[in-house]
């Protein structure tokens, strides 16, 4: 079957992307597979200026998952454009830039810089920065703020598709999804990490220096599928699903619920060739589960009750 997908102005050779922050700039993985086997790469969250991130420890293992509080360490957008992007096979594999800022104006500025870069296929907007003015609640937790950021990016992004990445840490993810759709998002990515915490009884300390971090990995797959299902019921724009994907069957679960594409995150840490393996296993899994085309399979979940 034809594995390619087109949506929101993107054409991918298969629906597999790697999740931001879990695949570096792709270059860390070239010893383990050919980046051109992937539909695309979403690079580490990139900000206007370099960031050193949070103090250590930044990661902790949890049952079937992990917590991270990296704090968006990154060399800034200029270094990304000069040192990393030119080394990526962006003509053959979509390079999507995950952007991060703490106010709408800065988001717009970042979008403006990336809008003119031929190698950038799309922007993914990470709205999990806590808004200090709004009492620490993140942009991604308030429909109004999420819409403002979406608009600001959309205005400056030129013809680059704008994908807004939603947080699961909200009472009503459908409301967030609708707000971003109305504000002009071309697609939504979901989910970012689930807010969590771990402690060390012996040292009587949190396991992350930042105390609270983001939970990811197979443990959160049920949360991710639920959010995707709720967003699918709320908006018409294409959705990119992620959260705990660790096999080709998991990929099909997200497409069944309605995703156009998926992202592989924490599973890349189980083995560095994981994304490449899943790409190779996907055709076989489609055959095994009688999937003939993405169009007929996508969103074909039989739901008797809402």
């Amino acid at each position, binding site marked *: 079957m034809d594995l390619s997908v087109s949506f929101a102005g993107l054409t991918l050779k298969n629906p597999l992307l790697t999740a931001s*922050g*879990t695949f570096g700039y792709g270059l860390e993985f070239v010893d383990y597979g050919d980046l051109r086997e992937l539909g695309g790469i979403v690079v580490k969250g990139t900000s206007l200026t370099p960031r050193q*991130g949070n103090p250590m420890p930044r990661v902790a293992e949890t049952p*079937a*998952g992990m917590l*991270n509080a990296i704090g968006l360490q990154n060399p800034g957008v200029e270094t990304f454009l000069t040192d990393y992007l030119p080394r990526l096979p962006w003509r053959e594999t979509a390079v999507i830039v995950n952007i991060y800022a703490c106010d709408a104006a800065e988001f717009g500025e970042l979008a403006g810089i990336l809008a003119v870069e031929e190698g950038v296929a799309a922007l993914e907007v990470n709205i999990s920065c806590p808004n200090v003015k709004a009492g620490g609640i993140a942009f991604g937790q308030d429909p109004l703020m999420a819409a403002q950021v979406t608009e600001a990016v959309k205005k400056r992004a030129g013809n680059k598709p704008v994908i807004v990445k939603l947080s699961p840490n909200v009472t009503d993810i459908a409301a967030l999804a609708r707000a971003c759709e109305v504000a002009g998002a071309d697609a939504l990515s979901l989910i970012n990490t689930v807010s969590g915490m771990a402690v060390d009884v012996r040292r009587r300390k949190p396991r992350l220096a930042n105390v609270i971090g983001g939970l990811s990995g197979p443990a959160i797959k049920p949360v991710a599928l639920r959010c995707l299902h709720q967003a699918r019921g709320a908006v018409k724009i294409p959705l990119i699903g992620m959260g705990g994907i660790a096999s080709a069957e998991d990929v099909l679960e997200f497409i069944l619920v309605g995703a156009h594409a998926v992202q592989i995150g924490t599973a890349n*840490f*189980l*083995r560095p060739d994981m994304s490449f393996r899943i790409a190779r296993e996907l055709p076989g899994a489609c055959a095994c589960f009688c999937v003939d085309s993405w169009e007929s399979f996508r969103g074909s979940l039989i739901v008797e009750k809402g």
Partner: protein
Amino acid sequence: MMLRPRAFALEPLWARPFSIYALTPKTISFFIQVAGRGTAVLAGLEPGAPLTVWGPLGNAFAVEPEVRTLILAGGVGIAPFAAYAKSHPEPSRLSLVFGCRPPVAAYPYKEIAGIAAAEHFRERGPGDIETFIALLGERIRAFRDGLILACGPQPFLLTVKRLAREHGARLQISLENRMACGVGACLGCVTKAKVAGDSPEQAFANVQVCTKGPVFWADQIHLEGEEPWT
């Protein structure tokens, strides 16, 4: 009846990092101390059990054949030095000081002692630690014109670094930060290191221990628990 094998465990998610202990054209060996769940699973594997393995990652200790080299190992920190000693072109210039709590026979100490000058110190009770630190101080002073290599627990590394600074010795340290991806992508294993130059005023940046380390010149990094650089 309900059956539940104990193997139905919520096993660790990440791989675990280890140094190469020995390498032949057909085999690779690791020396693994059980420290928690992951190493316990590894220790319990049947012969022939499948493993996912990747690496080696990052760099290794400096080899300076012409230079008298002092190896300081604490506990399982001795693991990387067996292969180091065996492949060193001038083992006569090597000396090892090894400290441990369990009996020394539990470690690959003899292997190194067969090649290089070696002494060991077993910490058995309170007070012993001071004696060991005094010993370390003496040896580091004796090698202040040579090269010193250290691997071991964090408090051991802090002590060694302080003593090396006091005596003006050149010291390399191997760090054992917790690792998730093991390929430099997740930024979970970083340490504060000087990226270029070595003036004390220069800012530290967070670099990946898995790919830019695990070995660093001691004066290029800031250890956890160390007083801020002055």
